[in-house]
C-alpha cells in the first residue's frame, strides 16, 4: 500500500507533463531539426529546417494556450503554471517565431549553414520558457544555463567574422561569471532558509528574523541576473556582443532571454521582499537609464546604438521593479512585451539592410533610406518612435505604466530621472530617423526587396507594436491577473 503511494510520488502524472508541455514541444522540434540536418541536402535543408523550426515555435504557442487551461503546480512544486508563466511563454514563443521568420533570408545572404542555428534557437526558447514557469531556484539555474549556452553559441554564428567570435567568447566568459554569481546566491539562500523553493524562501523571509545571509543571497542573485539583462553597472559586455553577433540573434537575445530573466527577477523580488531591496533596484535602474542613454548618444554603429538603448530600457523596466508590488508587476510584464515587439522588429530591419557580411550597419549607410526604400524606412521609424515612447505605439504605454506605477509608489525622484532620460533618448533615435529621411540617398548601399519571411516578421512586429499602443487594455488586464494570483 505504502509502496504504491511511494511510486505515485516519484512518477510524474499526466498533469505534470501538461505543465511543461511547451518545453516538451520545443525540445522535440529542436531534436528533429538536429537529426534531420545531416541527412538533408545542404541546399534544400535551409528552407525545410527553417519551416520545421517555425512550426515548432507555433506548436509551442498552441501548447501554451492549451496549458493555460490547467494552471497549478507540477513536478513536485518545481514548476508553476499561472497567468504569469503563460504570458511569458506566449511572448517567448512569439518572439522565437518572428526571429525564425526573419532569419531565413539572413542565413541565405550570409551563406551560413542553418540547421544547428534553428535547433539552438528552439533550445534557447526552451530554457527561457522554463525560466518563466520554474519556482525552484535550482531548476531556474538549469533553465538559465540552457538558455545562456544556446545564446553563447548563437552569438558566434558568423563563423567567418572575427568580430562574431569575439562577441561569442566575451559573452560566454562574462555570462558564465554572472551565472556563477547567481548560483552562489542560490547557495547562500539555501543556507539561510534551508530551501530552494521560492515560496518557502518567501515565507521564511516574511518571518520575523531574517538571517543576514539572505540579504547577501538576494544581492548575489540580483547581480547575476542583472548581468543577463544588461543592467548597469553590469552592462559593459553589451555593445561589443551586440555588435558582433548576427543581427537576428541580437533581436532574439535582446528580447526573449531578457524577458525570461525579468520573469525570474519578478518572481524572486516579489517573494524576497527584503528591506534594502528597493535601494538596490533604485540605484541600478537610475544608472542603467543614464549610462545607457548617454552611451547611445555618441554611437555611429546602429547595432551598438541599439545595444546602449537596450541597457537604458532595462533601466526603465527596473523602475517597475522598484515599484513592486503595487502596479509594478503588470507594468513590467507589459514593458517586456512591447519592448520585445519593437526591438525584434528593429533588428529584423537591420539584418536586412546589413547585407552580406553585415557591411552596412553604420548611421551613414542609412542615409536616404526613406527614398531608397520608403517601406523599410517607415517600418523602422515606427519601431524607433516606439522606442522613444511616442503615443499610439506600445513603447508609450509601456513607459507610461512603468512611470505611473512608480509614482503610485511615491518614487518621484526615479520618475524624474526616467522622464529626463527619455527626453535625452529621443535625440539619438531621432538622429537615425533624420538620417533616413533628411539626407541624400547613398547609392552604393543596395537595398534588396523584402522577402516573404522577413515581411511576415515585420508585419507581426508592427502589428504588435501598434496593437499595444492603441488597445493596451487586454494585455495589461491579463498581466494584472498575475498580481491578484500572487497576492496571498
Amino acid at each position, binding site marked *: 500500500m505504502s509502496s504504491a503511494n511511494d511510486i505515485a510520488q516519484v512518477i510524474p502524472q499526466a498533469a505534470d507533463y501538461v505543465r511543461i508541455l511547451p518545453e516538451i514541444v520545443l525540445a522535440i522540434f529542436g531534436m528533429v531539426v538536429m537529426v534531420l540536418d545531416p541527412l538533408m541536402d545542404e541546399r534544400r535543408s535551409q528552407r525545410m529546417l527553417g519551416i520545421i523550426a517555425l512550426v515548432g515555435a507555433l506548436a509551442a504557442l498552441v501548447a501554451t494556450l492549451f496549458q493555460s487551461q490547467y494552471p497549478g503546480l507540477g513536478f513536485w512544486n518545481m514548476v508553476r503554471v499561472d497567468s504569469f508563466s503563460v504570458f511569458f511563454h506566449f511572448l517567448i514563443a512569439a518572439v522565437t517565431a518572428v526571429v525564425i521568420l526573419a532569419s531565413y533570408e539572413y542565413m541565405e545572404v550570409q551563406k551560413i549553414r542553418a540547421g544547428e542555428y534553428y535547433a539552438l534557437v528552439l533550445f534557447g526558447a526552451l530554457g527561457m520558457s522554463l525560466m518563466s514557469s520554474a519556482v525552484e531556484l535550482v531548476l531556474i539555474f538549469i533553465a538559465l544555463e540552457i538558455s545562456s549556452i544556446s545564446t553563447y553559441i548563437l552569438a558566434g554564428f558568423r563563423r567567418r567574422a572575427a568580430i562574431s567570435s569575439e562577441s561569442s567568447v566575451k559573452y560566454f566568459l562574462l555570462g558564465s561569471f554572472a551565472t556563477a554569481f547567481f548560483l552562489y546566491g542560490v547557495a547562500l539562500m539555501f543556507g539561510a532558509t534551508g530551501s530552494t523553493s521560492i515560496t518557502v524562501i518567501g515565507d521564511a523571509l516574511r518571518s520575523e528574523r531574517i538571517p543576514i545571509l539572505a540579504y547577501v543571497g538576494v544581492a548575489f542573485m540580483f547581480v547575476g541576473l542583472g548581468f543577463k539583462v544588461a543592467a548597469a553597472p553590469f552592462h559593459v559586455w553589451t555593445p561589443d556582443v551586440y555588435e558582433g553577433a548576427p543581427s537576428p540573434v541580437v533581436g532574439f537575445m535582446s528580447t526573449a532571454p531578457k524577458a525570461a530573466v525579468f520573469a525570474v527577477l519578478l518572481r524572486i523580488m516579489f517573494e524576497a521582499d527584503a528591506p534594502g531591496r528597493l535601494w538596490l533596484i533604485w540605484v541600478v535602474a537610475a544608472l542603467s537609464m543614464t549610462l545607457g542613454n548617454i552611451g547611445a548618444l555618441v554611437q555611429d554603429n546602429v547595432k551598438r546604438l541599439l545595444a546602449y538603448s537596450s541597457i537604458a530600457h532595462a533601466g526603465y523596466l527596473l523602475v517597475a521593479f522598484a515599484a513592486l508590488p503595487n502596479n509594478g508587476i503588470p507594468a513590467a510584464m507589459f514593458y517586456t512585451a512591447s519592448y520585445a515587439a519593437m526591438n525584434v522588429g528593429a533588428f529584423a530591419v537591420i539584418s536586412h539592410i546589413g547585407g552580406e557580411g553585415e557591411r552596412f550597419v553604420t548611421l551613414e549607410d542609412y542615409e536616404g533610406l526613406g527614398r531608397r526604400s*520608403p517601406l523599410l524606412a517607415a517600418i523602422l521609424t515606427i519601431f524607433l518612435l516606439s522606442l522613444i515612447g511616442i*503615443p499610439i505605439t506600445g513603447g508609450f504605454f509601456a513607459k507610461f505604466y512603468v*512611470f505611473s506605477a512608480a509614482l503610485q509608489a511615491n518614487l518621484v525622484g526615479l520618475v524624474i530621472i526616467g*522622464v529626463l532620460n527619455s527626453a535625452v533618448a529621443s535625440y539619438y533615435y531621432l538622429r537615425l530617423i*533624420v538620417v533616413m*529621411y*533628411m539626407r541624400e540617398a547613398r547609392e552604393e548601399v543596395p537595398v534588396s526587396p523584402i522577402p516573404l519571411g522577413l515581411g511576415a516578421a515585420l508585419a507581426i512586429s508592427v502589428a504588435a507594436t501598434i496593437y499595444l499602443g492603441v*488597445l*493596451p487594455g487586454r494585455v495589461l488586464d491579463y498581466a*494584472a491577473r498575475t498580481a491578484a494570483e500572487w497576492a496571498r
Partner: protein
Amino acid sequence: MSTALDTSMLTLITFIPLAGALLLLLFPRRDRDIRLFALVVSLLDFVLSLHLPVHFQRGQAGFQYEVNNLWVTNPNIHYHMGVDGVSMWLVVLTTFLTPLCVLISWKSIHERVKEFFILLLVLQTALIGVFVALDLFLFYFFWEATLIPMALLIGIYGHERRVYAAVKFFLYTMVASMFMLAAILWLYAKTGTFDFVSIQAAIRNGQVENFTGAAPWLFLGFFVAFAVKVPVFPFHTWLPDAHVEAPTAGSVLLAGVLLKMGTYGMLRFNLGLFPEQSRSNASWIMVLALIGIVYGALVAMVQPNMKKLIAYSSISHLGFVVLGIFSFTQTGLDGATYVMLAHGVSTGALFMLAGILYERRHTYEIAEFGGLATPMPVYATFFLFIVLASVGLPLLNGFIGEFLVLSGAFRDRAVYGILGATGVIWSACYLLWMYQRVFYGKVTDSVNLALPDLSGRERAALWPAAAVALVMGVAPLLWLNAIDPAVQSVLAPFAQLASKMVGR
C-alpha cells in the same frame, strides 16, 4: 437635433483627414490626383466643421458635441471629446487653413508629393485632436502626435538648414512636454482619472490629497510645455529657425495653429485646473509676455529676411495672447481668444504671401526686392490688405483682439496696458516698413520686372483669408458670442478667489 450626428461630429472632423491620408497611401504616384484628393478631403473636413458653429448653442457654458466612451480600462482612459466656444473656433481655424495650405503647396512641392500631403493630413488630425480632447491622456497623445509630421515637413521639404531646424523644433517641444506628462501622471495617480472635467471638479472640491504642496509644480509643468509652444520669451529660439526653414504650408500651420496649442493649453489647463497658482504666478508671466511683445517687435524690425520678420512678429503677437489670458478679465480673455483666431488667419496669409514670392525668386531677402507693386499689382494689394489686418487697423481682424486684450490688461494694471500698447505701434513700424521696402519705389533689380502676378490658384488661396479678415473685423460678435460664455466659465473660480481675498 439629431444627437447621433452631434456626438459623432467631432470624431468625424478629427479623423477624416487621417482616413484621407491612409487612402493616399494606396494612391499611385500621380501627383495631380494626389493634390486634388488632398484638397477634396480638406475641403470636406472644413464643410463638416462648419456644422459646429452653425448648431452651437450660443450663450451656453460648458462643452458641447461631447462624446465620452471608455477607451482603456487600466489606466482609466476615456475617448472624451467636446468643444466650448474657444476650442470650437480653433478647430474651424484649423480646417479653414488646411485647404489653403494644400492650394499653396500645389506647385512648390514637386518632389515626394504623396508623402507631403499624407504628412499634412496627419498633422491636421493631430491638431484638431488637441483642441477637442477633454481627456488629459488623449490631449497629450494628440499633442505629441503633432510633433512628428511637423518635424518631418520641416526636415524633408524645408530649405537649406532644414535638418537643424527640424531637430531643434522636435527636441525643444519634446523635452518641454515631458514636464507636462509628469504633471498629468501625478494628477492621474492622485485622482484615478484623466478626465479633464472630473479632475477639475476634484480639485475645486479639494478632494486631491497633497494638492496644495504639489500645485505650484504642476502648474509649472503644464506652463513650461505650453510656454515653449507659444513661444513665450525666453523659450522662443526654436521658432525663427523652424519658420525660416519650413515649407510654406508648414509655416502656415505652425504659425496659424501650432502656436495656438500653447495659448489654448494655458487657457484650458493652467487657468482651468490651477486658478490660484495662475493668480500667484501671473505677475512674472505678464512681464515675460510684455518682454515678448516688445522684444519680438524690435527684433522683427531689423530682420533682413522676410520670413524671419514674420516669425518674430508672431512672437510679438502671441505675447498679446498671453497678456490677455493672464489678465484674468473677461475682456482680456475674449481678446486673447480673438487674437489667436485673427493671428491664425492673417499671419497664415502673410506666410502664404511670402511663400508665393519665394516660389518666384527663391529668396526671402527683403533687399532683393523693391518696387514690386509695378509688376505684381494684385499681389501687392493682397499683401497690403493682410499687412493692415496684421497691424491692427480698425475694421480688420487684428484690431478687435488687440483692443480687447489691451483694455483687459489696463483693467488689471495700467502699466501692462501701456507697455502692451507700444507693441501695436512697433508692429505698424516693422510691417509697414517692410512693405515699403518690398513694394514701393523703383524696381531695383530687373529680374523682378518679369515676375508674374498671382495665378488663379494663388488667388483662390488668398481670397478666403482676406475675406475672413474683413468679416472678423466688421462683425466680431459672430465669434465673440460663442467665446464669451466659455471664457466666463473659465473665469468663474477667479471671481470667487477675488471675493475670498476681499473677504479677508
